[in-house]
């Protein structure tokens, strides 16, 4: 009938193996994955051994993620001896392998790695049987090289490598190799299948992780909060008795309470007010210059009239007035309550005492 099929006579591995175990899983009798490389078992280095294993080797070569497995084939007359066995294969040969793919899709693109040439040699001599089809150049799909070279030659000389690749693929000469991205995705899919996390595990893990994050942020927040608040809050009471009205007989600035942060000012208009000694610019303590009739800040030169109104330097608003009330005949100043001129608070009760 002239029906022929291909059988593998020689298999070898080129540089670039990533030691992924895929080939040994497919075909454990041919491939052996070592610590940092992969070899063909010496017993498998004879055509007699590899010929019956053709489908599994092809599957291994097809499944290799870096495509370093190469082989040579010869045409053998007759139908495939393993046809029909695939479904019932005891060795777990996956479907879809075999003859369909062997139809010249894999091109041996070079001689075996020199490293293995010696091993192959010894294997052949030890087997004592000459290769039944020792002329791979006639029997392998190598003749297809001529059209390949023709395709490449048809391209411009400086065509980029991917253009050549595209031309080869477009002419049906080679199959497109899947990209690195796809291979990684495929591996990730396999990993995801094997290492599935249960819902319970996931919830527990997420809860633990969030608890850790919240605890960390909470500790940070507490530390910052603690840093902002003074550790010692010994403050004198905010209100104090400042004497009697008779202690302030005539208009002027009375400085005896400056250590408490208050000037008592008897204004010409007949009001007694308590002025804060804190400059409204940046919080320095101004000095009362009696000759100039003004408060003058030593830090940036802000000046205030005796009433507390700002008139020179950078201070943006008048000095603040503090609450001043009469408790019987005593004058009481309460520093916790301030009256600001720019908010129109200087006329409110408590902002001044009428003398």
């Amino acid at each position: 009938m002239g029906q022929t099929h291909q059988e593998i006579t020689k298999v070898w591995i080129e540089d670039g193996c990533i030691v992924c175990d895929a080939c040994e899983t497919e075909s454990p009798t041919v491939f052996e994955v070592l610590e940092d490389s992969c070899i063909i078992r010496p017993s498998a280095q004879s055509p007699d051994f590899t010929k019956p294993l053709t489908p599994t080797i092809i599957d291994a070569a097809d499944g290799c993620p870096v495509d370093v497995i190469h082989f040579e084939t010869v045409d053998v007359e007759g139908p495939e001896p393993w046809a029909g066995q695939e479904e019932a294969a005891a060795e777990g040969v996956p479907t879809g392998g075999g003859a369909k793919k062997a139809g010249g899709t894999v091109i041996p693109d070079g001689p075996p790695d020199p490293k293995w040439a010696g091993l192959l040699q010894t294997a052949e001599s030890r087997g004592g049987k000459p290769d039944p089809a020792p002329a791979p150049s006639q029997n392998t799909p190598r003749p297809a090289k001529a059209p390949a070279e023709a395709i490449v030659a048809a391209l411009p000389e400086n065509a980029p490598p991917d253009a050549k690749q595209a031309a080869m693929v477009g002419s049906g000469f080679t199959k497109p190799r899947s990209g690195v991205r796809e291979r990684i995705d495929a591996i990730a899919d396999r990993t995801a299948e094997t290492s599935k996390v249960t819902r319970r595990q996931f919830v527990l893990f997420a809860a633990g992780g969030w608890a850790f994050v919240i605890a960390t942020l909470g500790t940070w927040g507490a530390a910052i909060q603690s840093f902002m608040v003074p550790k010692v809050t010994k403050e004198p009471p905010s209100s104090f008795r400042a004497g009697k009205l008779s202690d302030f007989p005539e208009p002027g600035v009375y400085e005896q309470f400056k250590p408490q942060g208050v000037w008592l000012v008897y204004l010409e208009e007949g009001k007694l007010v308590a002025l804060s000694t804190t400059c409204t610019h940046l919080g320095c303590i101004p000095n009362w210059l009696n000759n100039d009739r003004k408060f003058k800040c030593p830090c940036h030169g802000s000046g205030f009239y005796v009433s507390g109104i700002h008139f020179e330097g950078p201070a943006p608003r008048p000095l603040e007035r503090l609450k001043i009330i009469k408790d019987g005949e005593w004058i009481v100043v309460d520093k916790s309550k301030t009256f600001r001129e720019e908010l129109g608070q200087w006329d409110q009760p408590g902002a001044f005492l009428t003398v």
Partner: protein
Amino acid sequence: MIDSLIMLASGAPGKPLFSSPAIDSFKDVVNFWSQPQYSLPLFTILFVLMLVFYRKWSRPIPAGLILVGFSAIYFGSMAIDSNYSLILTKADNVPITIMLFGVGICLWTAFREAATNDKAIEEGKPIPYSDRDDKVLVWPDLVYIELICLVLASAALLFWSVGLPAPLEAPANPAGPPNPSKAPWYFLGLQEMLVYFDPWMAGVILPGMIVSGLIAMPYIDTNPKGNGYYTFKERPFAITTWLFGFIILWVVLIVFGTFLRGPNWNFFGPYEYWDALIQVPLTNINLSDYFWLYLFKSELPTNPFVREGIGIVLSGAWVLAFLTVPWWPLMVDNIPGIGKVSGFARKLFGQMGTIRFLILAFHLAIMAMMPLKMVLRWLFTLKYFIYLPEFNMNL
């Protein structure tokens, strides 16, 4: 020890070594020109002259003469004025002297190298030391230099700390702050800014913009010229802008704060006695007061935004003018000079793109507003362009 030697050289406090009518008139002249409304423009003119004639003064002989002359006046003044001698010998102010001479030496080095390189560029020769492959090894070349610097710096600090007493003062007393109360020397420029602006502006926004401008610099200025070699001719705009901000708006303000700011934060000449009781009329007036009270002779409007409308419009126009320089010629094509500025801005805009140009223009507008406001304060006692105490916003 050292300070007593200096005291000996400069005469006892209160009594200068030399005094004569000629010296007094010299002191008067210096004190007069030290007033900020004269000295800041004077420093600016000197700055421009420095940039224009950088090839002439950076030659060894003129530079040496400048160094000797400046040192003679700077240190020699101790002998003719005891107040100046007190300021200069204060332990707090020793870093100012180091800074002044350090800045001068760095400027001289940069402009000397720039003059050499620019000449080479003009003649089409290769620039010395600009080869990117001209590399040296970290070990031993760099590490040896660092070791020597470390030893020298440690020795200098050791002698400094032994020779000069620490500038400790009396225990702090909330009722009696020192007068004047001065910031550390490196912050005196900032303290000087605070005199002219609202604390939020001068304390937060302007320093923040200095920092943001420094951060933005490598992204705004992507011109590779001047990388690895000194030049002025190839980078006039960048170097002028940077040096104006550093020299005039920082170093000069530190000098003001050190030598000219006395009690009650009043200005004094360098040879003037710091009189805490001197009366200086400084009543400040807001722009809105000028506008409504003096120009229109009317009451201030009650609505704060109407009241400050003139200031808001003028400030907005100032910033907008900077942001729109590239499009000026559409409006004012005929005015000579402005077309040139605008053309340069258009070139920058084309090179930088919208965002980077606007960032640059905004920073420039704020930077240029600072000396403007200072001069207006000195000349017209202007307080604020925009005065909105109702919202704690002043400009």
